[in-house]
């Protein structure tokens, strides 16, 4: 089975891109499945199931970072999709801090960025972009040619990814993504993350609200010091 992991900031158009690609794969007779990992609300599993009649599933990560959740549940998800008879599994993760890279070896890593999010976005997001195979740029019709070109140049400086500029209406150029996914290798053997996402479960993430280093454990720092560790 082939896997495509799709990451990107909220509202960047991840689901729209996935729908365009699923439509194209379906036309060529490929059986797909879809998993959405989100924090507390998502209905894309229902809309995609209704539109394409394919197996879909969603996971709420709750207090966990969705990309952390992805690491934990993906093994089970592959089994689920395999049993459901899918040839390609799409995993859509809602990145939060945008410092993560949820991509794994052999799977196709796709980052979806909206052109309207500012020209410097590609320089800000790190491994989510630099470790991706394909960078999809959406909403290109809303910005000036200049910003579009700078955005593109900034992607090229940050990553070796293939750049696909697309519009939501027709999904032009998403043919390329469908081809890439269809021709990708099957996942197998030991599954490994491509990069280490900073998803360490920390005291703040699990709900401690006090301000100041005195209240926390784990990897800490002062305003002027380097990182140090407190705890067992």
């Amino acid at each position, binding site marked *: 089975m082939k896997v495509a992991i799709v990451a990107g900031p909220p509202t960047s158009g991840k689901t729209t891109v996935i729908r365009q690609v699923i439509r194209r794969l379906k036309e060529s007779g490929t059986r797909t499945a879809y998993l959405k990992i989100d924090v507390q609300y998502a209905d894309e599993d229902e809309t995609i199931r209704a539109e394409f009649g394919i197996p879909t599933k969603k996971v709420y990560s709750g207090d966990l970072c969705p990309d952390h959740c992805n690491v934990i549940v993906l093994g089970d998800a592959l089994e689920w999709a395999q049993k459901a008879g899918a040839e390609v599994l799409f995993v859509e993760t809602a990145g939060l801090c945008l410092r993560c890279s949820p991509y794994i070896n052999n799977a196709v890593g796709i980052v979806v960025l909206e052109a309207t999010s*500012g020209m410097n976005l590609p320089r800000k997001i790190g491994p989510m972009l630099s470790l991706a195979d394909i960078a999809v740029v959406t909403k290109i019709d*809303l910005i000036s040619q200049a910003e579009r070109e700078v955005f593109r140049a900034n992607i090229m400086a940050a990553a070796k990814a293939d750049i696909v500029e697309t519009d939501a209406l027709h999904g032009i150029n998403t043919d390329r993504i469908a081809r890439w996914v269809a021709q990708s290798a099957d996942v197998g053997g030991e599954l490994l993350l491509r990069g280490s996402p900073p998803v360490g479960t920390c005291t703040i993430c699990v709900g401690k609200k006090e301000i100041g280093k005195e209240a926390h454990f784990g990897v800490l720092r002062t305003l002027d010091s380097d990182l140090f560790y407190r705890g067992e």
Partner: protein
Amino acid sequence: MQKESNIESIAVIGGRGRDGAPEPLASIELKMGDVVSIVGPTGSGKTAFINDIELLADANTPSRRRVLINGRPASDFSGSNSKHPIALITQHTNFLSDLPVHRFLRMHADIRQSDKGESVVQETLDFANQLTGEPIIETIGMTELSGGQTRALLLADAVVIGNSPIILLDEIENAGIHRTKALELLHGFQKIFVFVTHDPRIALLSDRRVVMKNGAMQKVICVEADERRAAQEIKKLDDLILELRAIIRNGDRVGAALLEERLHAIGYQNGVKP
């Protein structure tokens, strides 16, 4: 003027109209240096037509049109990381950056033509300032520009710094820029300009116009000598409208006597040219 691409022509091969029937106009070819207008009622498919060009359609849009570059499928040109040869300025296109004008243009110039950053920035500003009422101040933020200044700079940036060989403009007449001047300047560039327009002045200052109806290309009309003469009269009438607009903007009144006097001044009496 530097030559950046080796695109010589683009052709749009007709697909089907909204009713599913083949387009009456089977194809149209645009060559470098052409200025073409797309005309037709609202909803006739003008914007879809330029979107097809922008997307280098290959029978994969609702119109099923195909775009050829130099007679070959455009997909040969839209390689993954190569530069897109087309600039599209729509009514929604905007600058989102709040950088100062000069810094913004310089940044774009540096990624495009690193060897002569400063001179193309100045050329761009000069171009834009010929199209606007109030000159653009280089030190203010891009987002502080007026609507007209923004359109003028979008156009100037795409033409001069972007140096795109194909430039598509959607209803630029709504922008409040100097249209005759724009057409005059654009004719000096070896590029393909396509205007979606409702403006007779822009249509008649183009070389040709494609007539759209019901999502399909109907025919091409070449602007000939008689229409060029008419264009001169339309220019006078249009300038009169602009003058009336200026009077109203200034807080003054426009009366029947003033209108008659102005019409008379450009050679019209009792609404008829003697």
